[in-house]
């Protein structure tokens, strides 16, 4: 058995585990701490894979796994509608769109050379030692003005979201639909072949 099959197996198992996790989260609304740690660790590890793995098609699928875990985190956070939307839009559409993009650009530029390791370590120091520690210092030791009581478990978030959309956020909602239309037309116009326009 070559290495290629081995890591297909690993990826399959990863996806299977993530699905089992999501289903068990939906069925049993207990153990939120455990669910948070499993989902967050899987999410972070797959995100690290996205930026470090050289073969870009694998990082595309790892990105799907990362988004799946993020959907699980939304469900843990009582945002079930957003969790479903995350899985549908990101895992189902955006990640697959990226996979298409990779395949259409000649193996996604697999032979693209990388930056020098000095530049990488410099960037690592700036981002993780600088920015990340600063953010952690702020969010972990800062005091947040938390709500008095947590939301009731059986509150239907989708009802509240719908009411918000059609009262407070009506104008942004309409503009968002316009932006989607513009993006659709713009993407078609940009990606089509240029000589088609001149015929």
């Amino acid at each position, binding site marked *: 058995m070559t290495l290629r099959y081995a890591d297909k197996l690993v990826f399959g198992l990863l996806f299977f585990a993530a699905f089992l996790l999501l289903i068990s989260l939906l069925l049993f609304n207990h153990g939120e701490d455990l669910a948070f*740690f499993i989902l967050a660790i899987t999410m972070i590890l797959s995100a*690290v894979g996205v930026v470090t793995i050289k073969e870009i098609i694998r990082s595309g699928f790892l990105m799907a796994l990362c988004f799946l875990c*993020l959907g699980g985190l*939304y469900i843990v956070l009582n945002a079930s509608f957003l969790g479903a939307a995350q899985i549908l839009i990101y895992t189902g559409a955006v990640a697959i769109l*990226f996979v298409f993009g990779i395949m259409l650009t000649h193996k996604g530029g697999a032979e693209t050379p990388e930056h020098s390791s000095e530049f990488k370590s410099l960037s690592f120091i700036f981002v993780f030692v600088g920015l990340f520690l600063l953010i952690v210092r702020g969010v972990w030791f800062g005091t947040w003005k938390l709500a008095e009581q947590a939301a009731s478990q059986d509150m239907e978030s989708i009802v509240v979201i719908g009411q918000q959309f059609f009262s407070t956020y009506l104008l942004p909602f309409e503009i968002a639909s316009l932006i989607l239309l513009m993006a659709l037309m713009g993407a078609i116009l940009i990606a089509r072949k240029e000589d088609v326009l001149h015929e």
Partner: protein
Amino acid sequence: MNDALQQPGLIQQILDVSLGHYLVAAALLFCIGLYGVTTSRNLIKVLMSIELILNAVNLNFVAFSKYVTPETLNGQVAAIFIMTIAAAEAGVGLAIALSIFRHFKTVDMEKIHLMKW
């Protein structure tokens, strides 16, 4: 630091999931995405890292929506708007990447220097 000593031990504090946990996880995801944007030379990988950054922001919004405004869910509404914009951005970004690839026959960011002087 006296407050930290009076609270239950550090390990207990880490094990009890609170708002800070979600914010730290989101910060880590954001930093990974930022690292990917700065170090990658592949156009598509840069777009992927941008998606990671947008998702980190979304996680922040949803966590705040649970812990700060649980009744009005402003954070979740903002997260839905971000999701819409991110989907549009991914579509247009990939279209531009395809167009650039067709023109330059490469997705290496260093070789795309049409506007560089």
